């Protein structure tokens, strides 16, 4: 019999098999799902870089034989929508002018709402909150026409201001819920301490609560920017053609019935339209993680 050494038998970390059934299932599924999502994107990108003759060959998965940026330029500045032929550029700037104020105003109001509902409990706060949340469940279609009348009476119908107002109001329920829950989760004693220290409503909001709330502001911003940028319904209903947001213009380019279908231009236009939300995800996603990791939410 061999003498038993100190390190005989299992010792240290248990060895991991790279190709265990569990790993194969897990990564197999992940790869399949990724392909499912990435393949259309790949087709869009390669098609937008091809000339029309090459597209007519019909090999949609083949990489471009001759890379051309012509379709991108055309989509941005020359593509025709109805009578005008100035591409998506105008729609882009319209969307910016709609999205930026809508996001800023809705987040500003909703964060104060959420803060008041979480910390300054007033009589009827619960009823108010319930009504507000109920608003999140009412389908947009129900309110479409009443809002047309409302905006008409206010003299805002068709203007950018009107559209910004609509976006702000419709963002309110979900954003208020978001902020209220976040502020409720912050330690209550912090709020009490600030009150003993003599800070008032706005003092506590700006000096104590706001500096702790970067993560939730980033979440709210992602939600609002993508939501408002991608909005089609309100854009098409509440604005005039010269104020159409990018999404509506994209639709008009892609669905125009005159002439030949320029798939490469359509693909480029679609990617251009989706670029903003995509950028927001990439940039702020990092910020979001950093916000949590830096201990911003530790009490």
């Amino acid at each position, binding site marked *: 019999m061999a003498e038993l050494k100190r390190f005989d038998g299992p010792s240290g970390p248990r060895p991991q098999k790279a190709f265990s059934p569990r790993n194969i299932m897990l990564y197999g599924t992940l790869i399949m799902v990724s392909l499912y999502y990435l393949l259309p994107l790949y087709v869009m990108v390669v098609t937008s870089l091809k000339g029309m003759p090459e597209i007519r060959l019909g090999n949609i998965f083949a990489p471009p034989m001759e890379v051309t940026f012509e379709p991108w330029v055309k989509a941005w500045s020359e593509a025709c929508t109805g009578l005008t032929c100035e591409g998506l550029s105008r729609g882009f700037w319209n969307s910016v002018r709609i999205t930026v104020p809508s996001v800023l105003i809705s987040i500003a109001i909703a964060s104060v709402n959420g803060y008041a509902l979480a910390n300054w409990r007033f009589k009827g706060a619960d009823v108010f909150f319930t009504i507000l949340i109920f608003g999140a469940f009412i389908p947009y279609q129900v309110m479409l026409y009443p809002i047309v009348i409302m905006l008409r009476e206010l003299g805002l119908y068709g203007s950018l201001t009107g559209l910004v107002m609509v976006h702000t109001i419709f963002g309110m329920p979900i954003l208020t819920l978001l902020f209220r829950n976040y502020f409720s989760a912050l*330690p209550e*004693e*912090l709020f*009490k*301490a*600030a*009150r*003993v*220290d*003599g*800070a008032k409503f706005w*003092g506590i909001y700006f*000096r*104590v609560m706001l*500096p*702790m709330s970067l993560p939730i502001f980033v979440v709210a911003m992602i939600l609002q920017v993508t939501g408002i940028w991608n909005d089609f319904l309100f854009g098409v209903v509440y604005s005039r053609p010269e104020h159409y947001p990018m999404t509506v213009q994209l639709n008009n380019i892609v669905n125009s019935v005159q002439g030949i279908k320029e798939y490469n231009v359509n693909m480029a236009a679609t990617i251009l339209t989706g670029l903003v939300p995509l950028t927001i995800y990439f940039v702020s996603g990092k910020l979001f993680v950093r916000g949590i990791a830096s*201990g*911003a939410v*530790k*009490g």
Partner: protein
Amino acid sequence: MTTQKHSVEIKGLDLSFGHVKVLKDLSLEIGKNEFLVLLGSSGCGKSTLLNCIAGLLEVSAGQIFINGENVTWAEPSDRGIGMVFQSYALYPQMTVEGNLSFGLKNQKLPKAEIKERVARAADILQIEPLLKRKPGALSGGQRQRVAIGRALVRDVDVFLFDEPLSNLDAKLRADLRIELKLLHNRLKNTMIYVTHDQVEAMTLADRIAIMKGGLIEQLDSPANIYHRPVNKYVAGFIGSPAMNFLEGKLESGVFQFGEHRIDMQGYEFCNTQHSGGTTFGIRPEHILTGDAVTEGVFSTDVEVEVVDPLGSDTLVLAELCGAKIWIRLDGEGAVQQGDKLTIGLRPEKASLFSHDSELRV
């Protein structure tokens, strides 16, 4: 009208959350420079009472006076109080200096004075090296010092502590407890201190208020609370291990339980009329053993069931007429499970409680 004698005065305070009455017609007077501890199990309303004094909860009825001024409707910051919370509640995005000066900036004090007060508080609490750090970079004990400092800089007469040491480990808790006591000796402020830790209460307090169900059961010095509890609840709540209770009856000055009779000669009766169902309470350290048994009026033999050696002393669990009793022995005596122990009782160290009212007899 109220006199300046009291630092904090509470009159007929009621507080309800919906239908639940948390505080019931509570009145309390706290003298200048007094260290009062509100002690009770969780849910007894002690923290609620403190929050009412601080003005963080609106009272349902009653009045609160601080330094002779009716502050029932005043904002927390206008009441002349400083408060320290269990979870420290430091502003995480501000440096220690920012935390200390936040309240003073809100009062719009001149910069020089803010600086001076922060420096003084930092000096008292020895946190000068930490002033530029953020709370996240501090240990628990350091954070609680900063939290105390935040109350200190306000230069107020009344300090409120809401279980300030509960989040710290045992060693640190003991250290900070001593520091709090020294701080009180030095500052001579009025301090109201909420805790569920009876050691903190006994060591810190000038007076302890034992609370239960929104009422104050007993308000007295630590010694009186320990040695002369007014009712059975207080007797059982204070002391670890708890006071031993023997159920029996009292007849013409003699307590009877099982086949035993104890002549209560020497016991200070509050109510000489009482007779009938009675609980005999005796603290573990007041049970006589060894040679001292002869000093008592009663002796019997018990069998040791459990031995808890604590080092400084040894606790023994035994059975006496169906009741489990704890006996505190010298830490050096060698006792083992199964040993026979002769014990004696002295009536003057005991507490008698009526069965009906549970009040001291």
